[in-house]
Structures are given as structure tokens and as C-alpha cells.
């Protein structure tokens, strides 16, 4: 009876440990990827987001050029990819640290005003209404600000993201403590090997989960906010799935190695 009870307890502990492992793997992966400021900034750079956004901003600005009576040449070099990168850094930092979000468009406005002045002089055009010109400059600056800050939509996640990161950190610590306690209990009280079954279970669940996710969600067609951010998210999601699959494979290998090493060690004893 006692042996049977120990056996039930053993499998129950392993089952709980499997769930704890799964949560630990998922939350740690999230914490090190989407919830990491450094990772996201690196990904923005790696996926060429700034270059893509630069083209989109120019495209959007050119919509206002047609109606302004000016030529597209006035938009030449009014902003640079480095400027976008710097502003995106400010935005991402402010989101992850819950700080105020400020995009300074003074330089862009100055560059645009200089270009417009040069264009007007070159074509001998006299401005009758300076207010129209000032409003045009403001409009172009607004396009830049709105595109870089994703029309202020990032403000929606600003306060929340900070809280989520705190909760995830707490959860990871709690799960780590639970893992240690359960492992010690299985190892020293139940006198059984600890990791193989939980690792295998976690790996199976990750494989099945990734397969289900890939087959039920059309990642490549997701459209959120704009094309650039959508393709960025698509790449991030694909990377996340590949990373999880890799973790599952590693867990499988560690599980097998633990069993093999323990068996060899036991036989030698």
C-alpha cells in the first residue's frame, strides 16, 4: 500500500513539475524576448525596420506634397534612418520603463523649412500666405511623429507592459523555487530521478503547441497597425516558435542524457 502511495505521489510530483517546467520555459522565453527592451531594439535593427519605416514615412509625406504645390525634392534628407532609430530607441525605452514619450521634430522642421526656402528661391515662387507654409511643415512633422510612434498606439501598452514584466519576474522566481523544492522532494524523499519525465512532457507540449499555433494562425497574414510593424511581428513570432522548438529538442536531449548517465552510474555502483 505504502509503495503504491509513493508511486502515485511520485507521478503526481512529476506531473506538477512538468507543468511548472512548461510555465518556466514559456515565461523565461517571453521575458528574454518580447518582454526584453534590449532584445526588441536588436530585432528592430536586425529586421531592417528603420529602413522600411523610413520609406513608408517618405511615401506618406509625398501624399501631402501633391496637394501643397511643392516638389518632392523638398523632402530630401529632412530626416535620416539614424534619426528614426534614435527616436524608436526613445519610444521603446519609454514603453518598457513607463516613462514619458517625446519625439523632437525640431531638426526635421528646420531641414524642411530650409529645403522649402531653397525650392521657392530656385523656382522664383513668392509665398503669399506664410501660415499655409507653416501648417504644411507642421503637417509633415506630424506624419513623421505619427509613423514613428505608431499613431500613439504604443501608449496603450506603456503602463501595462511594465506591470506585466514585474508579474512575469515574480512568477519566474516563484516557479524556480517550486522547481527546486519539488526536485529535492523527488530526489531525496522519493529517491527517484528528477528531470527526464518533466523534460520530455515539456518538450512534447512545446512541439504540439508550436504545431497547433503554426497550423491554426496564419502568421504571415497578420496585419496590425501597419505593414512594417506587421512584418516585424511576423518575424518575431517565427523566431519565437523556432526558439521554443530548439528548447524542446534540448530538453529531450538532456532528459535522455540524464537517464543514460544515471543508469550507467547505477550499474557501476
Amino acid at each position, binding site marked *: 500500500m505504502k509503495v503504491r502511495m509513493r508511486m502515485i505521489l511520485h*507521478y503526481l510530483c*512529476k*506531473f506538477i513539475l*512538468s*507543468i511548472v517546467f512548461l510555465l518556466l520555459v514559456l515565461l523565461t522565453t517571453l521575458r528574454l524576448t518580447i518582454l526584453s527592451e534590449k532584445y526588441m531594439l536588436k530585432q528592430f535593427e536586425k529586421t531592417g525596420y528603420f529602413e522600411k519605416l523610413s520609406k513608408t514615412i517618405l511615401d*506618406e509625406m*509625398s*501624399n*501631402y506634397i*501633391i*496637394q*501643397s*504645390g*511643392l516638389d518632392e525634392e523638398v523632402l530630401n534628407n529632412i530626416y535620416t534612418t539614424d534619426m528614426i532609430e534614435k527616436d524608436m530607441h526613445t519610444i521603446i525605452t519609454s514603453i518598457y520603463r513607463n516613462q514619458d514619450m517625446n519625439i523632437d521634430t525640431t531638426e526635421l522642421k528646420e531641414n524642411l523649412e530650409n529645403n*522649402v526656402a531653397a525650392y*521657392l528661391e530656385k523656382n522664383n*515662387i513668392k*509665398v*503669399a*500666405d506664410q*501660415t*499655409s*507654409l*507653416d*501648417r*504644411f511643415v*507642421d*503637417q509633415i512633422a506630424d506624419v513623421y511623429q505619427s509613423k514613428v510612434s505608431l499613431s500613439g498606439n504604443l501608449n496603450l501598452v506603456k503602463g501595462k507592459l511594465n506591470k506585466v514584466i514585474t508579474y512575469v519576474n515574480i512568477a519566474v522566481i516563484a516557479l524556480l523555487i517550486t522547481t527546486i523544492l519539488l526536485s529535492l522532494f523527488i530526489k531525496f524523499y522519493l529517491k527517484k530521478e528528477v528531470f*527526464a*519525465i*518533466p*523534460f*520530455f*512532457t515539456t*518538450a*512534447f*507540449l512545446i512541439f*504540439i503547441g508550436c504545431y497547433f499555433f503554426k497550423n*491554426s*494562425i*496564419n502568421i504571415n*497574414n*497578420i*496585419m*496590425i497597425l501597419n*505593414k512594417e510593424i506587421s512584418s516585424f511581428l511576423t518575424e518575431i513570432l517565427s523566431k519565437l516558435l523556432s526558439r521554443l522548438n530548439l528548447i524542446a529538442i534540448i530538453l529531450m536531449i538532456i*532528459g*535522455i542524457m540524464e*537517464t*543514460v548517465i544515471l*543508469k550507467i552510474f547505477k*550499474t557501476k555502483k
Partner: protein
Amino acid sequence: MLKKIIQIFGVIAKQLAVAFFFACFLIVIINLTCGNKIQRYISLINMITVMDKTGEDSESQEISFDSVKKKLASYPSWGTIWATLNIPSINMEAPVYQGDTLDIIKYGIGHYAGSYYPGEGSTIIFAAHNSSQHFMRLPQLKIGDKVIVYASYGTYTYEVTNTKIIKDTDTDSLAIQTDKEELIMYTCYPVNVVGHKDKRYVVYAKLVGEEHES
């Protein structure tokens, strides 16, 4: 040695079987407790899919007209060309796109999706930039000038009845009416001023002739 290897394989197989059972058991629990919610979220995520057809490559789209109900039987997709606008007096001909966002009117005339279509007996609103290919010469139109819309389901001829300069915030002048067919075309104004334009030049035209495709 071989016996030992077989023994190890046996243990691993047993562990894998237990792990697989655990995984399946957990999936069943998740499915029973929040399966519906997961399905709902997946459907929602899959719904966030937008086909971007806007641009120079947008193909002309055939649409059909129900002449009994005086209504379109099928509507054009967003960003596609569904008609050609011709104004002989100012020598202008340009494609008409579905939608009037800045992205769309970059390529041609934009049809305000909230307005009606030629033949439906209500207000049709067209917007375009004041560029040379589009509505730059709209202020040159005189009362009585002809405006022709060649849609895939018919040809509609309008006659200019009125012109107006309005503030960009004046939406009353672009109100949609259902008691008479009227084509409203507008562009930014003044045409020859550089910078932001806070006025609109509006042309009103009434339906004077229609030919349906058989």
C-alpha cells in the same frame, strides 16, 4: 553491454510514454477548461488580416448593377479601380478607385466609400489631388459642362450645376442625399498656393444621361 543498452532504451521508452500521457492529459484539461476561449482568440487573430491592394497595380474590377433595385449587385474591393472619370472640357481622364484615403488618391480619383454609386439615384462623392493629371483644372469648369463616368456596368453623364469654395471642415456641403442623383467632386484649394490648403473647391453635377451595359 547489449543488454544494458536495451535496458536503457526500455527505460527511456517508458519515460517517453509517461511524458506523452502527461502531455495528452494536460491538453485534454486545457481543452476542457478553456478550449472555447482559445478557439475564439485564434479566430480573432486570424481576422486581423488585411489585403493591401492599393497602388498603381490595382486591377480594374468588374461590378454588376441590379437595374430593378437600382443598386449595385456587387461592390468593388477597397483600393481597386471600378470606373473612369472623363471631363472633356478640361481634357481630364483618370481612373476612379474605391476609397478616398491619401494612399489611394495618389494614383487617381478616390470614391468616398460612404457615398453611393452612379445609377443608384443618390449622392456620389469623388475626391482627388489638385495635381495636373487629376483635379488641378477643376476650378475651370463652368455650369453646363459635361462629366462622364464610365463604369463597368454603364456610362453615366452628368452636367455641372454649381461650384463652391468651402472650408476643409465644412462637411455639410458634402452631405449625402438620397432623393436625387448628384455627383460631387472636390479638391484642395487654392490650387496655386504653396503649403497647406485649408479650403476645398467643390463641383456639383446632376445626372443627365445613363446607358446600362446589357
